[in-house]
């Protein structure tokens, strides 16, 4: 059977939030700019990055995501997310290892209501005619620099966004422990570009993904989309195969 993750969930929770309630209502964020840079990663650590509930994709991948909202119900914000591509049983998923978000209402809401592993920072999503980029600095060190180079328009329907499995501390039946929270946003894309993927800086320790090395570019996309963050419907025990460990709420 496929390779399972072997990471101890307790060791993946450095940035995992605590979700006081899973009774989250859906929320639509209008006209969000979304940059996604996808790379294949070194397979040596692929199983160390995800808990036993999940399988690494074949080949293993990361998605570096930058989002910028100018307005909307959570106000203006920019966020950078690093996600490891994976499968929950047969479903395509991504496990975020860490996210950096500008300070404000969005950071709190994304963390507390949808389990994004957020720390506060100043990610910068830049749009140029020849490229779009996301950059994150930690003090004077650039811990992430990823780009889409040479954008060309593609069809709005050509893109596929996969759901996230967000590791969060949740109290259930009197016990607080890490659970994977399924977050499957809907994307209503109004404009889409595709281009070459390029990662110029990636500090794996900063992103809580020790020894993860992006090694082979796949593709990058840049879209404008209305994103509806969903009501939480499923959580999954990170220690059990997703096929048996998933709980419907």
């Amino acid at each position: 059977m496929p390779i399972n993750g072997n990471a101890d969930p307790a060791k993946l929770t450095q940035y995992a939030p605590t979700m006081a309630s899973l009774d989250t209502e859906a929320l639509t964020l209008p006209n969000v700019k979304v940059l996604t840079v996808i790379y294949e990663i070194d397979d040596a650590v692929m199983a160390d990055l995800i808990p036993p509930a999940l399988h690494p994709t074949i080949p293993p991948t990361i998605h570096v995501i930058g989002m910028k909202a100018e307005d909307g119900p959570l106000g203006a914000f920019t966020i950078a997310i690093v996600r490891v591509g994976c499968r929950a049983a047969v479903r395509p998923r991504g496990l975020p290892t860490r996210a950096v978000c500008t300070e404000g209402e969005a950071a709190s809401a994304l963390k507390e209501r949808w389990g994004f592993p957020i720390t506060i920072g100043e990610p910068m999503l830049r749009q140029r005619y020849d490229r779009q980029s996301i950059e994150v600095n930690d003090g004077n060190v650039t811990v992430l620099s990823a780009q889409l180079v040479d954008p060309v328009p593609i069809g709005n329907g050509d893109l596929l966004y996969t759901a996230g499995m967000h590791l969060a501390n949740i109290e259930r039946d009197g016990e607080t422990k890490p659970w994977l929270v399924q977050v499957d946003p809907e994307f209503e894309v109004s404009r889409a570009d595709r281009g070459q993927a390029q990662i110029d800086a990636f500090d794996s320790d900063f992103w809580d993904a020790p020894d993860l090395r992006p090694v082979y570019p796949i593709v990058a996309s840049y879209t404008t989309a209305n994103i509806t963050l969903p009501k939480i419907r499923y959580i999954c025990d990170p220690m059990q195969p997703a096929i048996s460990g998933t709980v419907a709420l």
Partner: protein
Amino acid sequence: MKFGIFYEISVPRPWENDIEHTVYHRCLEQVRLADELGFHSVWAVEHHFLEEYSHCSAPELFLTACAMQTKQIRVGHGIVVCVPQFNHPIRAAERAAVLDILSDGRLEFGTGRSATWTELGGMDANPDETKETWDEYTRTIPQMWTNERFGYEGRAFKMPTRAVLPKPYQKPHPPMWVAVSSPGTEVDAAERGMGSLGLTFGGFAEQEEKVNRYRRIIRDCEPAGAFVNERVATVNFLYCHPDNETGIKTGSRLTGSFGYLAAQLLPVREVHPTRSYPNPGLLAASRQQAEQTPGQGASAPEGVCIGNPDRLIEEIKKWEACGVDQINFLLNALETIPQEQVLDSLRLFGEEVMPHFADDKPATTSGARELAAAPAAGD
């Protein structure tokens, strides 16, 4: 209705103790039995890098071994990947011709383009271009087979005039097929006068719609080869057991394992947005298959050939009513079913199911003009 067997050659971890050798030789044993039982064809995929799901990267070698160990069964490339980074078209034509010669004219030539980033990325092929290169291969390979010399300057490749040798044993050339895993690809097959080699596990209504569309369009086709190969094949699972519940339960393990493995791969569409791959094709269908909750209860998904002979006869008659000419069966995945049980299942199918289906249609071909004049099938 004709019956074939279909190989992905799935090899479970751990890959030690000669497991690949064991699996390959079990497959050959199954092929020998299928030949004795009167199966029409054995098909082998071409896949690369698809861990556990398919270790069948050199199907021409496997099929050559099949041909050498059998007498009647036809050998089907299901499919040759028609992308230059995988197979140069000249080599594809040459290898196929040799296989046709060695098998005494038993080759069926399937064409396709791969649907996973796992493979296309691994071969450094551009997913945007695979439709175009496939199209070019389907037009040029038959010319390499039928013209004494051939020269060409195109998009995927160019070559000064040379004699591409040897020529196939079948004249003018082996029947050609198109792998149909994405909706609409049956139209590509029909427009080129090629067989529709279905590789997904859709239900009856979906299949009937595809067949009707195929039959309608092929009447006005422009054949890529020297003749029209109007046939519709679909793929299915096979586990036949005297006890229906046991058959369904064991067969469900097979369908579930196959779908689970397929879902771990990376379809092009998931990571590389392109109009060339508008949907995940086979992988999405397999995922649905895996979600049928294998092994529970005595029901089986519509059309899936697992159960006792009576159930299989009933399901196959429905496929026949949809206009399907041939069903190719997957017999195992991850060695989920022990070899003796696979062989018993094949025997039981051969003895109790196959006799219910007349095999009186011509084996391969019909001319485009005859087709154009014939009444429309499925209208």
